[in-house]
């Protein structure tokens, strides 16, 4: 089985809102980060201290206002997909498709592609996705 989509429900905190009474654009990035941590946890992957992931690129579209209430962050590994992923190969990037939905809304309020890379925190050098997953699964 490959990595499935995960869904995380979060409350909108009062301090997430800006002067217009909707979620500030920068806070949406925090929701996405929470979604990725949840994605790891849902797949029994533990982020260690040695091999870590870092965000290398974020492409984000804000499609609708997010008011007070709750949001659902949907996270799926977009690249490499199930066909591309080969545990015996090497890849240094993983790209997540992440969407933030309002309750009952079919279309996302936020639609993002987040590219992450992986580092050995001690050596400060890049490591592969395969190395990261092996270490995270072993924790």
């Amino acid at each position, binding site marked *: 089985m490959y990595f499935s989509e995960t869904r995380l429900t979060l409350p909108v905190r009062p301090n997430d809102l800006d002067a217009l009474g909707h979620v500030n654009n920068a806070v949406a990035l925090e929701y996405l980060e929470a979604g990725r941590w949840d994605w790891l946890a849902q797949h029994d992957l533990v982020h260690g201290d040695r091999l870590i992931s870092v965000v*290398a*690129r974020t492409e984000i579209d804000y499609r609708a206002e997010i008011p007070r209430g709750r949001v659902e962050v949907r996270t799926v590994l977009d690249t490499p997909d199930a066909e591309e992923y080969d545990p*015996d*190969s*090497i*890849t240094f*990037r993983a790209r997540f498709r992440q969407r933030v939905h309002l309750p009952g809304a079919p279309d996302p309020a936020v639609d993002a592609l987040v590219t992450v*890379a992986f580092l050995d925190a001690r050596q400060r*050098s*890049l490591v592969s996705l395969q190395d990261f997953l092996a270490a995270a699964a072993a924790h």
Partner: protein
Amino acid sequence: MACTIPPMTTPGVDSYIRQKFAEHAGLSEEQLFADDVTLAAVISRSPKMTNSIDLMEAFAKTANALRKDYGVRVRLPALPLDTPTSTVLKTFLEEFERQKEATG
């Protein structure tokens, strides 16, 4: 500067690596190897790269292709961004031959 190909290199591997790396960098072989540019210049010239992560991904895809087509697993060491492409190619070829010999 011309690339010094290590002795006893498997025929065709040199051009295969050049071709695959150029393909994944989105540049021509001439743009990559004719002037012996540095890796920093490769990132700057490439329409597919914005940082060293993209560069490493191009190396990885080249290494993955080598494994599939030649059955040899190559892992490059970390290379500084001022490394010229001739040195990268030489390192690739040396690693290829070393791994090929090690795996019989």
